[in-house]
C-alpha cells in the first residue's frame, strides 16, 4: 500500500471504465458514448467500455492499464458501491496503486434500472462519470485501520435458529450468550407435533438440541431475559441484558414441580400461553413438560403472594429446604462484552380475527393451524385427540390457506410454510380422526426438497383440494346437510362455480408476520427493516445473513418467513460469518474518519459537543480540538460544522465533494 501516488510525477492519470453489466446498463445507457465523452475530460488517459467490469478479465483490464499507461487514478462506472466498491478497490490495489485512488459511479441502481429514456439515462451517466473523474483527482492514499474483535458472541432468540447458531459457535470453542425472552427456549418449533415433509417428531429433533445448548460449557443461557441496551460497534459491543424475576432461583430449583402441585389454586385456572389458550395453568408453572431450563416460574399477575402478600405459601412448604422460591426477587441487569451479535428473534403468527369473515373467535370450531398443532400433539392439552369444542370428533374438516398471506388487505407476502404445514396437519388430521379433509388453496407452493412428493402423498391419501380463495365461513344453513355445521362459501376456480361446503371444523393456515416489537429490536441493534417489517439483509443474494451494521447478523424468520431447514441453514451461516470475524481477530475499518488540521483550529470547541461518540476532546494546553481516531465512526457531522473548516474527513474531503457537485452540473 506504500505505492507512489503519482508514478514519479505530479500528473494525474485517470483510467475510466464503464460497465455494460450485460444488458442491465448497456440497454439503457449508451456506454461507448459515455466512454467517448469522458476520454476528452482533463486527466483521463484511458477510457473504455466493457461487458462485465467485475469479472476477472474486467479487473485484469484495470491492472494491465495501470501498468501500461502509468495510471494513478481509477474510476469505474457500474453498479452500486455498496455492491462492488470493495472488488474494484482490490483490483486497483493489485494493479499497484493505493486502493483509495479509486472512485465508483453508480449507473445501474441509480440510472439504468430506474430510467427508461436512453438519452436522459446516458446524459445522467455522463454527469455522474464527470463528477467522479473530477473527484478522484483529490483522492489521497489511505490505510485501513484494524480493530480487534472480542471473541464472545451474543445470540438473541432461543428458537431453533438461535439454538443452532449458539451450538455451532459453542462447538467451535466460542463463548456464547444466548438470550431468550420466554421462560423456556424452543420457540415455535417446540409447539409442533411433527415436521414436514419427513413427518419426524419435532420434539425428538428439537429437545436434544435444547438440552445440549443448556448444558454446553461454552454457552451461557439466559431465559426470561431481554436485551435492553447495545453500545459500541463491531468487535466491541457492550450489551445490557435484563433478567426478569421468575420469583424462583434458577440454580436452586430442580424442576420437581412439587410447588405446582401444592399451590393454593387446586385446579389450573389461567390461560396457558404455550398451548395457545387451549388449556389452563396455575400461577406457579412450568411452560411445558420439556421446557429448558426445567425451572418453574411464578406469574406475578396471578400469584396471590406476589400480588397481595396474603397467601398460605404452600409452595414454599413444598419446596422445603431447597428454598428455591423467592418472592422478593428483583429484575437484574447484566452487562456483557461481545464482538459479534446474531439476531434470531423469529416471527409472530397472523391474528385471524383480522379477517372477520372467517369467523375466528366467533365460531368455536374455527381454529388456527397452531391451535390444531397443539391438539394433535400427544403432549398437548388433549393428549393428541382432535376434538370439537363439545368434545366430539370431527367427521369433516376444511383448511383455509393464505390467511393473512398473499392478501392485499393484510399481508402481501407468501408465508412460504403454510401450504406444507397445512398438508402435514391434514395428513395428521386424517390419521387421528379418519375425517374427510379438504384444503382450500390459491396455489399449492411446495418447492422444497421432498415437498412436491409430500403433496403427491397428500393427494394419494385422499385429501381433497379445492382451488379458490374462501369468501366466508358461516353457520347459516340453507340445506338439511348444512344444519349444525360450518359452511365454507368458495368459488371453485377450476370448476367455475360457487360451492357451499359444510364441515365440522375449520383450520385457518395463518401466515407469519414480523414480531410486534421488531421496530424496537431493529433500533436496538442498529439494523434496518424492509417494507414489510422483516429485518433487512445486507444483500438479498450475496449477504443474506449480514446486516448493514458490521458484526450484527440475522438468522431465521426474523429475516422473512422460512421453514426449519432454511432457518437452520441461516443460523449456521450466521455462526460462520461471526466466526470468520472472530478467527481473523480484527476487522478492517473504512478509513473515513475525521481529522483536524491543527494549525487552522481556532479552538472554538463547537465540534466537541456535536460528536455522538465523544471522539472529540479539547487540549487545554494547546487550545485545540483533538479527534480520537479509534472512537470516530466517520459520520462527518463535525466536519460540516467546523466554522474554520479545519476538520476534514478522509474519503469525503470538502474538495472531493465540491468537485463532485461541479461535475454533476457540468454536463447539460
Amino acid at each position, binding site marked *: 500500500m506504500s505505492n507512489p501516488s503519482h508514478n514519479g510525477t505530479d500528473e494525474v492519470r485517470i483510467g475510466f471504465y464503464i460497465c455494460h453489466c450485460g444488458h442491465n446498463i448497456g440497454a439503457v445507457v449508451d456506454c461507448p458514448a459515455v466512454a467517448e465523452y469522458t476520454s476528452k475530460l482533463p486527466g483521463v488517459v484511458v477510457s473504455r467500455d466493457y461487458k462485465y467490469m467485475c469479472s476477472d478479465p474486467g479487473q485484469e483490464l484495470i491492472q494491465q492499464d495501470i501498468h501500461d499507461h502509468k495510471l494513478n487514478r481509477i474510476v469505474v462506472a457500474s453498479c*452500486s458501491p455498496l455492491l462492488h466498491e470493495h472488488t474494484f478497490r482490490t483490483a486497483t490495489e493489485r494493479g499497484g496503486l493505493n486502493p483509495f485512488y479509486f472512485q465508483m459511479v453508480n449507473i445501474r441502481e441509480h440510472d439504468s434500472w430506474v430510467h427508461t429514456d436512453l438519452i436522459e439515462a446516458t446524459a445522467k451517466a455522463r454527469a455522474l462519470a464527470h463528477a467522479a473523474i473530477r473527484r478522484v483527482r483529490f483522492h489521497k492514499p489511505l490505510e485501513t485501520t484494524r480493530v480487534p474483535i472480542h471473541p464472545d458472541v451474543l445470540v438473541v432468540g432461543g428458537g431453533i435458529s438461535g439454538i443452532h447458531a449458539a451450538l455451532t459457535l459453542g462447538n467451535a470453542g466460542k463463548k456464547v450468550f444466548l438470550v431468550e425472552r420466554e421462560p423456556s427456549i424452543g420457540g415455535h418449533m417446540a409447539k409442533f407435533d411433527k415436521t414436514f415433509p419427513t413427518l419426524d417428531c419435532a420434539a425428538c429433533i428439537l429437545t436434544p438440541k435444547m438440552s445440549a445448548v443448556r448444558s454446553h460449557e461454552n454457552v451461557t443461557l439466559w431465559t426470561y431475559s431481554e436485551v435492553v441496551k447495545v453500545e459500541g460497534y463491531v468487535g466491541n459491543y457492550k450489551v445490557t441484558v435484563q433478567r426478569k424475576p421468575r420469583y424462583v432461583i434458577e440454580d436452586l430449583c430442580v424442576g420437581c414441580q412439587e410447588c405446582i402441585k401444592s399451590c393454593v389454586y387446586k385446579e389450573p385456572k389461567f390461560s396457558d400461553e404455550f398451548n395457545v389458550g387451549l388449556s389452563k395453568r396455575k400461577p406457579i408453572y412450568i411452560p411445558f413438560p420439556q421446557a429448558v431450563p426445567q425451572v418453574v416460574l411464578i406469574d406475578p399477575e396471578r400469584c396471590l403472594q406476589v400480588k397481595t402478600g396474603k397467601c398460605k405459601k404452600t409452595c414454599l412448604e413444598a419446596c422445603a429446604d431447597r428454598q428455591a422460591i423467592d418472592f422478593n426477587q428483583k429484575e437484574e441487569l447484566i452487562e456483557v462484552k461481545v464482538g459479534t451479535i446474531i439476531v434470531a428473534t423469529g416471527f409472530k403468527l397472523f391474528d385471524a380475527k383480522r379477517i372477520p369473515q372467517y369467523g375466528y373467535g366467533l365460531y368455536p370450531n374455527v381454529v388456527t393451524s397452531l391451535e390444531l398443532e397443539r391438539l394433535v400433539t400427544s403432549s398437548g392439552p388433549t393428549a393428541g385427540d382432535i376434538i370439537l369444542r363439545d368434545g366430539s370428533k370431527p367427521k369433516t374438516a376444511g383448511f383455509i390457506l393464505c390467511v393473512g398471506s398473499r392478501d392485499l388487505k393484510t399481508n402481501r407476502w407468501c408465508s412460504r410454510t403454510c401450504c406444507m404445514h397445512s398438508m402435514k396437519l391434514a395428513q395428521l388430521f386424517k390419521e387421528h380422526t379418519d375425517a374427510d379433509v379438504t384444503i382450500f388453496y390459491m396455489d399449492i407452493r411446495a418447492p422444497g426438497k421432498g415437498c412436491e412428493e409430500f403433496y403427491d402423498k397428500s393427494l394419494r391419501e385422499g385429501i381433497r383440494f379445492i382451488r379458490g380463495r374462501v369468501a366466508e365461513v358461516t353457520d347459516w344453513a340453507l340445506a338439511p346437510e348444512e344444519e349444525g355445521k360450518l359452511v365454507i362459501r368458495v368459488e371453485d376456480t377450476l370448476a367455475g362455480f360457487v360451492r357451499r361446503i359444510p364441515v365440522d371444523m375449520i383450520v385457518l393456515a395463518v401466515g407469519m408476520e414480523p414480531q410486534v416489537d421488531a421496530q424496537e429490536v431493529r433500533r436496538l441493534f442498529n439494523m434496518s427493516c424492509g*417494507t414489510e417489517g422483516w429485518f433487512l439483509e445486507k444483500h438479498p443474494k450475496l449477504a443474506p445473513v449480514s446486516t448493514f451494521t458490521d458484526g450484527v447478523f440475522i438468522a431465521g424468520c426474523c429475516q422473512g418467513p422460512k421453514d426449519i431447514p432454511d432457518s437452520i441453514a441461516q443460523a449456521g451461516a450466521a455462526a460462520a460469518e461471526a466466526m470468520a470475524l472472530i478467527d481473523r481477530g480484527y476487522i478492517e475499518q473504512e478509513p473515513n474518519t475525521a481529522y483536524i488540521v491543527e494549525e487552522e483550529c481556532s479552538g472554538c470547541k463547537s465540534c466537541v459537543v456535536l460528536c*455522538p461518540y465523544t471522539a472529540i476532546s479539547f487540549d487545554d494546553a494547546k487550545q485545540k480540538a483533538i479527534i480520537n481516531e479509534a472512537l470516530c465512526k466517520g459520520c462527518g457531522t463535525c466536519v460540516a*460544522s467546523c466554522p474554520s473548516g479545519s476538520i476534514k474527513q478522509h474519503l469525503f474531503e470538502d474538495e472531493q465533494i465540491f468537485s463532485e457537485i461541479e461535475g454533476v452540473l457540468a454536463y447539460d
Partner: protein
Amino acid sequence: MTEKNWQPRIVAFFCNWCTYTAADLAGVSRLKYAANIRIIRLMCSGRVDPQFIVDAFARGADGVLIGGCHPGDCHYVEGNYKALRRFQMLKRMLDDMGIEEQRLQLEWISASEGDKVRTVVNDMVEKIKPLGPLGIPKKFEAWDKEMAELEEKITSSEPVAAPA
C-alpha cells in the same frame, strides 16, 4: 438545452445507510422515476455542509434534495437532527436570497423505502418545473459583465487622472 425542453437539475445528498440504500432498492425493484436527479453519497446527512447546498445552487442546480434516516434511526445516532437544524437555518437564508423554498428539500427515507425515493424525486421535479430555471450561473455572468463594463468605463476615463 433550449428553454422549451428545459429540465430541472437536482443535486441530491443522500446518506449512505438509509437514503442511498433506498435509492439502490428503488433500482433493484426497477421503479421508474424522473432522471433529473444526481445523487452524491455521503456517510451521513450530518455531513451535509450548508456550503455544499449553496455551491450546488451557484453552479446551476435548480433544486437540492437532502436524504437522511428517519428521526431516531440515524446510523450515527443523531446526525440527521444536525442536518435538520442546518436545513431550517439555511431555508431562511435562501428565502432572503430569493431562492424559492421548493428548491431545497429534506426528506427522511429509510433503507426500505425505495418507493419513497421515486415519489419524492418525481414530486420535487413537478414542483420545480413551474418555477423555471434558477439560473444563478447566468446571474453571475450578468454581474460579471456589469463589473467588467464598470471597470472598462473607469479605465477608459483614466486620462482624467487624479490630481497630482
